[in-house]
């Protein structure tokens, strides 16, 4: 089963994302901030990461830069999932190595479509 790590300091967002991603057939783990997320990646690299931008300690941008330098860290698909919705933020995330970008608020259809775009779920599941 494919695995998804949700890195977000909002318990509500983690809960919503978990429910949707599990419905799409992925196994979900959660991290409350970037530091905890990196620890989890060192222990077991997930297939996809839903990554918040603004978090205490290690933010999304720093997380992504650290992740991509880790052994096997280029393998997970990273979907930035954030309220930072301007073109500049999106471009910065892509330059940092993000594969996709989800603007909050999101719903099941958007999350499913984005996971399909990065090849994590099949079209019929989306």
């Amino acid at each position, binding site marked *: 089963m494919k695995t998804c790590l949700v890195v977000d300091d909002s318990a509500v967002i983690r809960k919503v994302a978990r429910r949707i991603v599990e419905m799409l057939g992925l196994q979900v783990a959660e991290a409350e901030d970037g530091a905890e997320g990196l620890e989890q990646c060192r222990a077991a690299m997930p297939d996809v990461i839903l990554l918040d931008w603004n978090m205490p300690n290690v933010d999304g941008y720093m997380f992504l830069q650290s992740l991509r330098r880790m052994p096997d860290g280029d393998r997970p698909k990273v979907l930035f999932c954030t309220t930072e*919705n*301007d*073109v500049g933020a*999106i*471009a910065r995330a*892509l330059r940092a190595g993000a594969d*996709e*970008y*989800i*603007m909050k608020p*999101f*719903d099941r*259809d*958007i999350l499913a*479509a*984005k996971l*399909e*775009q990065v090849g994590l779920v099949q*079209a019929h599941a989306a």
Partner: protein
Amino acid sequence: MTDLDFEFLRGFLKTRSGLAMTAEKRYLVESRLTPICRQRGLASLHDLVAQLRLGHDTALERAVVEAMTTNETFFFRDRVPFDLFRDVLLPQAIARNAARRRLRIWCAASSTGQEPYSIAMLLQEAGPRLAGWQVELVATDLSLEVIERAKSGVYSHFEVQRGLPVQWLIKYFTQAGEQWQITPALRSMVDYRQINLLNGFEALGSFDVVFCRNVLIYFDAPTKADVLNRIAACLAPGGALVLGAAETVIGLTNRLAPVPEHRGLYGHAAPAPAAAVPAPAAAPLRALAGR
């Protein structure tokens, strides 16, 4: 809504738009027309039907047809037809039309514009292969309201996130507050026109590729056959028709045939050996595909 009111609406919608409303769709009629009652200050659907029966209120007639025929869509919906267009149809058309360097594409039920703009993005991505070509992308819909919305090219952040790669969002859209707008260059590639598929569309000319997805499902069989025959007539030799996944030409027309290995794709049917009809000007699509 009484049974008589529903029967009237069924007949009205069939005549005006070809929409075949079965009894199971009664809930859809109620959910889509109730907002019009509120907008127009009509107390009930019965009053709305009474107004329609008078036959004097063309604005109301149009609003009812548009409410019942406008359907949800999104960028690169179902993805496969667009992959087919990029990987099969476009290269074939470029090879076939190399001498005259002209390409014509028709989106026959373009709704709020996501389909034609998706095609426009693929054409842009084709880059140098179409340099110096005359490319026409015609998009038609029954509804003036959705055509106006499509022309504006403005979409919510929910709409631009379904099916559209983020790299293309920042390449082909500009941000306008909470909304995103298609760039003027991409908007200018699409020629929007109001067309009712029940009426003649021969004046649009001949097309290399016709997208007519998820509209025939609302028609009854004779209407589907009529529309398909007329689409076949405006399909260029070697051209292709793209239908929705739940749609087919089989059993409806002998002028079009499925393209093997490509579900949802149709080309001119090869003439039967003994058929007393003129030979087509070019080979059917599947022969051109080398299959």
